[in-house]
C-alpha cells in the first residue's frame, strides 16, 4: 500500500548540479511532490529522479549503497548540515517526517579541498583511503597469530575502542568542519587501534604516519568547533581528537626509530 494522501508533502529542492570535476556547478530548483513522511531522504530523491527521467532530463547523481546507515557511501549537505537535520544518522536513514509541507531544501555535496566533486553530489573521498593506507592497521599477518583469548582486553578498553571503531568513513566530519579537518576520522582510527594491546605496539609509528598523511592530503587543522562531533552519524566523540594529540605529543621527545632491515644469516 502506499502512504495515505493525508500528510504527504510538496517540497522545493535546490540541488547542486555539476557536470564533472571541471564544471563550475550551480544550484538548480526542482519540485518534489506528494512525498510521504515514511520515505527516506534518498527515496525522496529517487522519486524526483524518476520524474526528471520522464521529463527527459538528467537525473541527479548521488552516492548511496547500503541504505541502512552503515556503508558510509551517502554524502550530502542538507540545508547546510552533513546528513541533514537529525542526529546519529546518515542521509539514507533520514526520513521525510523531519520535514514539513512547503519546505525548501538545499542539497549540496561534501565541500572540502581534499574531496573534489566528480558529478553533482558525488565526491572523491580517496584521501581517506590513503590515510588508512599510511598506517591505519595493525601489521598482523594472516596466520600465525595467538588464540583470541590469549590477549586479554579490559572491557572498558574494548568498549571504548569499539566506540571509535564505529566510524563509517563517510567524511561528514570533514564536510562539517570550517577547516575541512579530518581529525575526527584520523583520531578514531588512532584510538580504535591504540586502545587495544594488539595495536598499541605500533601506536607511535601509527599516529605520526597518519597525521603526516592527513596533512599531505590537504585537510585543515582542528580549532575546536565540534561540528564534526555534532554531525557524526555514529556519535564519535571529539575527545578522541584530544587522545590523538596526546599520543602524538608523546612521540615528540622520543620519535620512533627508523630501522633499516638487515639480511638474515
Amino acid at each position, binding site marked *: *500500500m*502506499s*502512504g495515505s494522501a493525508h500528510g504527504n508533502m510538496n517540497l522545493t529542492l535546490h540541488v547542486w548540479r555539476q557536470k*564533472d570535476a571541471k564544471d563550475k556547478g550551480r544550484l538548480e530548483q526542482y519540485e518534489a511532490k506528494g512525498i*510521504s513522511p*515514511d*520515505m*527516506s531522504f534518498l*527515496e525522496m530523491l*529517487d522519486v524526483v529522479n*524518476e520524474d526528471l*527521467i520522464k521529463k527527459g532530463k538528467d*537525473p541527479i*547523481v548521488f552516492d*548511496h*549503497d*547500503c*541504505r*541502512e*546507515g*552503515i*556503508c*558510509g*557511501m551517502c554524502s550530502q549537505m542538507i540545508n547546510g548540515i552533513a546528513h541533514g537535520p537529525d542526529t546519529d544518522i546518515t542521509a539514507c*536513514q533520514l*526520513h521525510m517526517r523531519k520535514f514539513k509541507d512547503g519546505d525548501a531544501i538545499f542539497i549540496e555535496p561534501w565541500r572540502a579541498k581534499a574531496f573534489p566533486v*566528480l*558529478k553533482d553530489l558525488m565526491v572523491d*573521498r*580517496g584521501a581517506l*583511503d590513503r590515510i*588508512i*593506507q*599510511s*598506517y*591505519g*592497521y*595493525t601489521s598482523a*599477518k*594472516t*596466520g600465525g*597469530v595467538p588464540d*583470541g*583469548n590469549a*590477549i*586479554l*582486553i*579490559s*572491557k572498558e578498553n*574494548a568498549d571504548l*575502542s*569499539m566506540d571509535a*571503531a*564505529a566510524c*563509517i*568513513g563517510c567524511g561528514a566530519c570533514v564536510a562539517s568542519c570550517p577547516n575541512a579537518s579530518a581529525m575526527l576520522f584520523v583520531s578514531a582510527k588512532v584510538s*580504535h*587501534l591504540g586502545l587495544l594491546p*594488539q*595495536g598499541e605496539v605500533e601506536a607511535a609509528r601509527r599516529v605520526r604516519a597518519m597525521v603526516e598523511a592527513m596533512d599531505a592530503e590537504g585537510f585543515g587543522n582542528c580549532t575546536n568547533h565540534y561540528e564534526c562531533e555534532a554531525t557524526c552519524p555514529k556519535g564519535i566523540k571529539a575527545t578522541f581528537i584530544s587522545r590523538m594529540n596526546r599520543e602524538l605529543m608523546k612521540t615528540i621527545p622520543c620519535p620512533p626509530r627508523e630501522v633499516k632491515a638487515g639480511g638474515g644469516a
Partner: protein
Amino acid sequence: MILDGKAPSGPLAQKWDKHRQDMKLVNPANKRKYKILVVGTGLAGGAAAATLGELGYNVEAFCYQDSARRAHSIAAQGGINAAKNYPNDSDSIFRLFYDTVKGGDFRAREADVYRLATVSNNIIDQCVAQGVPFARDYAGYLDNRSFGGAQVSRTFYARGQTGQQLLIGAYQALSRQVKAGSVKVHARREMLDLVVVDGQAKGITCRNLVTGQIESFWGDAVVLCTGGYVNVFYLSTNAMGCSVTAGWRAAKKGAFFANPCYTQIHPTCIPQTGDHQSKLTLMSESLRNDGRCWAPKKQGDNRAPGQIPEDERDYYLERKYPSFGNLAPRDIASRAAKEQCDDNRGVGPGGRGVYLDFADSIKRLGQEKIEERYGNLFQMYEKITDENGYKQPMRIYPAPHYSMGGLWVDYNCMSNLPGLFVLGEANFSVHGANRLGASALMQGLADGYFVIPYTIADYLARITPGKVTDAHPEFKASADAVKAEMDKLLAIKGKKTVSEFHRELGKIMWNNVGMARSDASLKEALKLIPALREEFWQNVNVTGGNGEVNQQLENAWRVADFLEFGELLARDALNRKESCGGHFRVEYQDKGEAQRDDENYCYAAAWEFKGVDKEPELHKEPLKFENIELAVRSYK
C-alpha cells in the same frame, strides 16, 4: 554431465590437512610473477586480496563502490560463528559442521563444510590480531551469544556491527598491502565480462564508473567475490548496487551456476511502508536471543499490542519448535511468520507483520542490558519506523536477504572454468539450501584468509605466468562487445525507467518464486519473465551518455542481467520437485514443514548457459553423505 566436487578422500577430519600436503606450491621468489585479479572487496574479496598480496602475488582488486571499505558485508549485524567452545557448552568442530549441514537441509558438500568449521577458529584469532573489537567480559575474555539453528553459544560479535568490524579488519589488512605495493585497488569499477582464452579465465572487462571508459585487465587467475543476487526480488536487504552481473557474465562465458533457487528470506526485517520503498532493512537475528515472536490468536485483531492480553497471544515459534524456540533457523521462522499473516493474524499496515517483543527480557535483565546488546538496532528501528522498540514490540516481516546458490565450485573453490575461482556468497558451496545465522561472515573470511591462499597455488603452479596478457585479441573482442551493449542500452530511448522494470521483475519473482513456490506459479514466472525482458529491450529509457558517470546505465545493465538470471532461478525451482531449506514447493510439504526427496534430488544442480531464450543444460553433482545420516530436519 556428472560433476565431481573433488573432495579429497580419507577420513573427514583429515581431508583438508591431507589435501594441503598434496597440493603444489609456488616458490616465494616466483609468486610476484603471477598476477591475480580479485573482483569484489567484501569479506571474501578483501581477505583474499590482502592475504594473496601478503604472500607475494601481484594482486589487483576491484570494487564498484568508491572505497574497498564499503562492500555489503559491512551491513552484517549479529555475529560470526566459530567452534571455539569458550563457553564450555559442548561445542566442537564436528558440532558446528553438523549444525551447518543440517541447517542447510542436507544440500551441501560435507568436506567443504567440515573445512569451514575447522578454520572457523583461526578466523577469530586473526580478527583479534587485526584489532577487531569483539565484545569482551569484565575479565577481558571474548563474549559469545547464540544464533538460530544451534543449541550452543558460538557467535562472536562486536555490538550490532560485526560485519562492519570484520570488514574494516580486512580492509585495513588490504590497505597495508596497498602501501607495501603488492595490491592495487581499482575502486568505482564494475566487471562486465570475463575474458576466457582457450577455456581458461585470463582477465576481466570493466567499466570505469567515473569516466565511462571500458577497461581491460589481464591476470593469471580471476577470483570472483561478488556477493549474492537477491536483488532479483527488487526489494531485499542487499545494498542498492548488489547484483548478479559479475557472476552472470561469467556464467555466460561458461561457468556453471549452481542451485540458483536456494534463496534466503530472512524472518526479521522492518516491514515495507509503501511503493516508494527502495530497500528493506534487516533487524539482526541476534535479537531473537532476547525477543519473542508472536501474533494475536484472534484473526483480524487490530488492538494495540499492549491491549492484547498474554493468553490471547500466540508465541508461535515457541509453540511449534519448543526445543529451539525463537532461535529456529531462518527458513522455518520466515515460513512461520508468513503462515500467521496468511491466516489474517498479521499486524501493522496491511497485516504484513508479526511482533518481536522484548518486554520479558527488559523485565528480566533491565533495559540497560538490552541497550548494551542491541542499542544500535533499536536506534535504527526507531529512525525508520518512528516507534520505540523498548516501549512497544517491534514489527517484523520476512525479506529476501541472502543467496545460498551461486557459481559452482569444486573443493578448491575453482569453477569448472580453470583459473576462475569463486569465494563467499558468490559461490554455492557450504550453506546448502539454507544458511544459518552468523555463518556468512565465517564463510567469507574462511575462503579469503584460509582457503584460497592454498588452493590457488595448486592451479598457478601448473601454468606459465603472464602467458596471456591484454594484448590477446580476446580482450579487444570482449571490450567491443561490452561497448556495443552500452550503446544499445542508451539507444533504446523507450518510455519506462529502469526502476520500473526492476520493480515489475521483483513483483513477478516475489509472487511466483518467493517464499512459496508451486508448479503453476513457476510456470507463470517462466512466461512473464521473458516477456518483460523483451519489453525491456524495446522500451527502457536509459538517460545520459557513455563517457561520464551514469548511474542509470549502471542500473540498466544490472536489471538486464536479472531479467535473464531470474528465468534460470525459476527454472531451477521448477526442476527441484522437493522442498528443502529456503526452497519451498507447496506440493511437497508435511503440514507446513519442508519435505525433501533424497532419493531423487540429493544433488547440486549446476546449470550451463546455452544462450538467452535457450534452455540451459543441467549438470548434476551427487551429494554423498558419509559422516552424517540424512534425516528429516527437526527443530521441535
